[in-house]
């Protein structure tokens, strides 16, 4: 999972798990489990992150504006998620790597030593896009915050090892509630194509590459309201962690929506941390959408698209193995695959049948709500679901 700092990458995964587990249409088919060792990450689970986000629906009052100031992660987090069919044993294990936004920058020391090996190992790349910055900010600000140029360089390092070694890049515009609500989601997609044009063109030129655009609304009842310069409350000249709006008279709104009168020893100053590669980044503020509550949109599509991709990739590999199964080594390889599938208890045919069924019923969306398969590789077309 790639993208700028605090764009909401972790919430993509949290949204996926929440909707796969709770959506009436899908929870009868899937059981989604998180077996991540959270002891490694100070016990801060993905569910906790999601709950903190959705709790704003209860804590915020209509008519107020608020913002979140998540710390972001300092290190790569590996989430172990398993997807199981509700009526079959065996789990499909998927490892998600949540990468700090800064690591995407090729100028950083972490890029060469940590990011490059990871990029060459992964099959699916989820690029989180902070939609309010994409739609409302100047190109330089959006470029810095969403790390577009860095992604153009980073993703050139995807290694396709052969014809059947499919890779998939999903551009996922997040926090899309405002544009979905007023039917302007096509404008978001247009902007994605414009601002990520170089990246999309480069990726489409790759062999065995799938590229899709998949806008989602992770909460539903919270929409973007306005950008404000990043200000922070100071006490005796030292910066506290409290973000606020610029002063109107002597009054400010702090992140949790409360209004405060600024008086000594407090003062307000520009947030010196609100800079990415020398570009000053404003804060995006949000409001509740009255009467909507928790109503995520298309979060489950990320998981369904990944699942379909993994099944197609496995099928292609199996087809290749069957073709090459002549001779002693082919026999050994075939036997190994059968053994590994048995060992993991995965019934790929059952997964395949379910994915085909969901696709037929239109539950896996390839269009509508701005969803678009931007580039389909030839290998993908060879597989019939």
């Amino acid at each position: 999972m790639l993208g700028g700092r605090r764009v909401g990458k972790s919430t993509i995964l949290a949204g996926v798990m929440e909707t796969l587990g709770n959506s009436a249409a899908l929870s009868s088919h899937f059981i989604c489990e998180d077996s991540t060792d959270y002891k490694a990450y100070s016990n801060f689970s993905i569910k906790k992150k999601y709950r903190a986000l959705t709790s704003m629906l209860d804590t915020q009052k209509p008519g107020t504006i608020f913002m979140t100031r998540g710390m972001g992660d300092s290190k790569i987090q590996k989430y172990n998620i398993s997807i199981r069919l509700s009526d079959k044993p065996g789990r499909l294990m998927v490892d998600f790597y949540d990468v700090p936004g800064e690591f995407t920058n090729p100028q950083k020391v972490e890029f060469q030593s940590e990011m490059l090996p990871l990029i060459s190992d992964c099959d699916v790349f989820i690029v989180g896009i902070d939609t309010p910055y994409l739609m409302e900010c100047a190109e330089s600000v959006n470029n810095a915050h969403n790390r577009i140029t860095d992604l153009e360089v980073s993703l050139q390092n995807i290694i396709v090892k052969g014809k059947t070694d499919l890779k998939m890049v999903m551009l996922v515009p997040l926090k899309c509630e405002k544009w979905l609500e007023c039917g302007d989601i096509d404008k978001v997609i247009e902007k994605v194509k414009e601002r990520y044009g170089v990246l999309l063109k480069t990726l489409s030129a790759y062999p065995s590459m799938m590229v899709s655009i998949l806008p989602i609304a992770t909460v539903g009842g919270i929409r973007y309201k306005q950008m404000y310069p990043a200000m922070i409350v100071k006490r005796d000249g030292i910066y506290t962690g409290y973000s606020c709006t610029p002063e109107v008279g002597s009054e400010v709104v702090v992140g949790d929506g409360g209004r405060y009168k600024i008086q000594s020893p407090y003062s307000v100053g520009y947030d010196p941390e609100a800079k990415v590669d020398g570009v000053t980044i404003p804060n995006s503020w949000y409001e509740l959408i009255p009467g909507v509550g928790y109503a995520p949109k298309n979060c489950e599509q990320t998981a369904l698209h990944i699942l379909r991709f993994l099944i197609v990739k496995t099928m292609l590999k199996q087809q290749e193995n069957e073709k090459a199964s002549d001779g002693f080594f082919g026999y050994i390889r075939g036997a190994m695959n059968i053994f590994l599938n048995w060992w993991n208890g995965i019934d790929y045919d059952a997964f395949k049948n379910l994915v085909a069924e969901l696709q037929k019923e239109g539950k896996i969306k390839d269009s509508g709500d701005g969803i678009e398969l931007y580039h389909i590789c030839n290998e993908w077309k060879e597989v019939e679901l």
Partner: protein
Amino acid sequence: MMTVYAQYSFGGYKIFRLAENAVEEVTGLNRLGLPQSGIQLFSHYGIKFICTSDIDGNYILFVNDMPCKEKDDMGRSKTCSMLITSKDKADVPLMRRIAVMIAFELDVFESFFSSLFSIKETLAFNSTDFKAFFDSVCIDASMLSDRLRSTIAIKSNPIIIYTTSDAKTALEPLYNRFEKKNLRKGFLLKWDENTRNIKDNSIERIGFMPLIKKIINKIVTIWKN
């Protein structure tokens, strides 16, 4: 000569070299002597504390993921990490003493180290207080009166405190920068995040028995399915 680095969030998490009166950012073009093993330690969770030498001959003392006072809306703390490194063998005894001192009072060191950072217009680090801490370790002989501490300080085995459920998960990613055999000989201690302390009786063995147990468990699961 010992060099001190820290990872701290100032416009995103960055690695800095901490010198007297100067906080310099480490970049890909200007690594400021940061060893490769240091980058790896700064980039991953799993290891809370490690004191050992890497395959390139750097002696390393690393403390990971120390909570700072500042918290976000989710109640999550900003964190910082520290790395002390040296190529000079003469520095090893002192580093070892510092390591023992920190390892046995990790929570105290965490709040001390994180309090040394402040943001005014730029990021500042209180190097005077940090130097005073170093000096106190040099002259404080009382720490060696404790038998366990003195043994660990004198021996050369790595000291490792891990946060993962088992030591293997934490150690495996390190094998490309640290010698596997050496790490396995280390004092392995488990960190308990709830009590913010080292767990008693947490020294864990890695070997064939846990592996055999794992295989038996797997077969039992498949059989049940």
